[in-house]
């Protein structure tokens, strides 16, 4: 049984809320991808060179990246030749199988924040400018407040005008504790204050917001490694988690971003935001392929509850399979 039929079966039985949400949030992306695959299926009875070129176009236009795309297509092409498979639908299943396997082979799959047994768990949130870090932090805070955890927000983005205020507003709405510092003050000192407070009050989860930075700005990346050192000074094993936030509309620079951030601060996860647009978020696959960092959460909408645990099966199902 191919993966598609496996997934179809799985999801026809399990019509839970999660899947509904996924397919709803990703309906645009899904339509684009699966419509294209379907129209291909109708256009071609048998696969030929042209068919593979069109498959390549679909994957590249989903931001999967040229490197991974060429490799996967080559693999599928080879399998098709070897096993003499020329049926379009079967080829599509092989393709999706390969994408699925590629992701699974690259490392562990995690979603929820891993809490430490003693003392506060520290989550550092990084990313380039404008990807939705602050909003994602609010969503994460809500998730864990709802689960009965005590959460402290630390507004270490002292650089962008209005950033601290933005987080403050969220903290008020969520009725959540927050530590802020003056505009343009040292982000590390704000983090220091926050962590000291968290330790004293035995907070479960500390989420640290830092200013967005383009990964080629050496001084800002240096600042980030300093921040890490300061964090580790207050709580030795911290930060326990470092999430890189990436906008789903990002192209191949997303991989460059992930690599650059991974160099200065060990990344434990990726969160993809704005998946509710028309972008296909293929960068998920490209980053996993290059770095092996698992995608932890995925932002499917503007509502507070729209941050979902990343579920590869649902993702691929939403992306490739007709409803």
């Amino acid at each position, binding site marked *: 049984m191919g993966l598609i039929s496996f997934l179809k079966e799985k999801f026809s039985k399990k019509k839970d809320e999660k899947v509904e949400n996924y397919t709803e949030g990703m309906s645009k992306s899904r339509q684009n991808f699966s419509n294209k695959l379907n129209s291909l299926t109708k256009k071609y009875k048998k696969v030929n060179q042209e068919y593979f070129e069109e498959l390549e176009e679909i994957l590249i236009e989903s931001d999967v990246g040229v490197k991974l795309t060429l490799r996967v297509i080559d693999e599928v092409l080879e399998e098709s030749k070897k096993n003499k498979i020329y049926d379009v639908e079967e080829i599509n299943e092989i393709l999706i199988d390969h994408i699925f396997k590629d992701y699974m082979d690259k490392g562990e799959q995690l979603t929820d924040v891993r809490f430490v047994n003693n003392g506060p768990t520290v989550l550092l949130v990084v990313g*380039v400018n404008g990807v939705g870090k602050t909003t994602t932090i609010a969503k994460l805070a809500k998730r864990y407040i709802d689960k009965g955890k005590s959460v402290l927000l630390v507004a270490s983005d002292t650089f962008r005008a209005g950033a601290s205020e933005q987080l403050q507003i969220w903290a008020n709405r969520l009725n959540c504790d927050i530590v802020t510092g003056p505009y343009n003050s040292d982000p590390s000192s704000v983090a220091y204050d926050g962590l000291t407070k968290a330790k004293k009050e035995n907070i479960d989860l500390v989420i640290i917001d830092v200013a967005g930075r383009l990964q080629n700005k050496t*001084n800002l990346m240096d600042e980030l490694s300093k921040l890490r050192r300061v964090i580790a000074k207050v709580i030795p094993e911290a930060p326990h988690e470092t999430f890189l936030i990436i906008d789903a509309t990002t192209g191949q620079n997303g991989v460059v971003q992930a*690599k650059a951030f991974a160099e200065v601060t060990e990344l434990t996860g990726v969160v993809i935001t704005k998946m509710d647009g028309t972008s296909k978020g293929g960068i998920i696959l490209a980053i996993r392929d290059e770095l092996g960092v698992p995608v932890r959460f995925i932002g499917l909408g503007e509502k507070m509850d729209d941050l979902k645990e990343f579920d590869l099966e649902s993702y691929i199902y939403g992306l490739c399979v007709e409803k």
Partner: protein
Amino acid sequence: MAFENLTEKLSRIFKKLRGQARLSESNMDEMLKEIRVALLEADVNYKVVKEFISSVKEKAIGQDVLTKLNPSQMITKIVHDELEELLGGGENEIQYQNNKPTVILLVGLQGSGKTTSAGKLAYLMKNKLHKKVLLAAGDVYRPAAIDQLKQIAKSIDVPVYSKGTDISPVQIAKEAKAEAFNNHYDVLIIDTAGRITIDEALMNELNEIKKEVNPDEILLLVDAMSGQDAVNVANAFNDLLSLTGIIMSKLDGDARGGAALSIRHMTGVPIKFSGIGEKVSDLDVFHADRMADRILGMGDVMTLVEKAQEEIDEKEAARAARKMMSGKFDLDDMLDQMRQVKKLGSLGGLLKLIPGAPKVSPEQIAAAEKEMKNFEIIINSMTFEERHNPEIFQYSRKIRVANGCGKQVSDVNRVLKKYESMKEMMKKMEQYKKSGRMPPNMGGLGGFGGF
């Protein structure tokens, strides 16, 4: 770094071609394949890449390659011309109204940089074009967006028209326009909420703002990092609002901005500005030809020349050049030269503009900049006589200078060594001049390649 950027990639491909006598179908194919991959990695839209490659191929095969140019120069030229055509064209200047405020509406996806760019535009128009500018805070949805705009506006001393968040953006735009009209502002820049194209309610709201204030310019912010979907986004905005221009944001990152190029090609909307840094002054008008140069690794010489003209004191430079050529070159001259270079901006930024500049890492650049700063400090601690006759330096003088500026004697020695090597280079240049040949490795910036 995940991949080489397009510039590096193409220059490597061209290097491979160098030395080959002619363009054959086979070496062309290999190169075109690599150009294709490079363009796709730069997020240029798949369809645009396809058209681009086939048109380059057509032109390359049709042309007589065995003229004055070697094959790699030939391809460079063809690819460059093609790229420029892809990028350029269209009216890329803002048309200002004479007797009433010019109304500019900024639109774009969430996080594309609208609010920041609103501030940058205001700064550019106020300080460079001497316009009286009013900003309108139309993003009533994102928490603290208005605060952000107000903080930026305060830093550049431009007023903001804001009525808080309990009012519709359409109403704010309308009132702001009246305010701009009554108080004789030259320009009104309206910031709007970020949106996702499929959000019809917000898109309709934009349309209503458009109908209400009838803006002269509707500019779409495009993130240089956008992927393949950018074309669809731009199309959606363009279909609804008839855009008049594009602002590419975050071009100071290492993204090649291929998506924005595709947008230009697919929608026909001209790119008017590019965001090139985090400071409020970091907005530049967009130059298609230079962008093509840049993509091709030919450096952005025009920008460098312009920068140099703006910043370098010509008389001073001429005097220094004469002095250098005459072989009389002292520490003051070296300091002057360093200061002139520093005026142009960061070394890293400069190196990017110079064609064929050596590849250096950000760390090396940071180290070089620190070194230049140290040199300045050390030279400033010397006496007039020492600066003009560095030959008189002996150990005791070195100790005094080192103590005077809190450095080590070895640091002072480094300055003197650098001075000696630069002087040596001047001498060589003089000899080359006499022999009529150009020295190797002598860029326009004198001896600073050696840092």
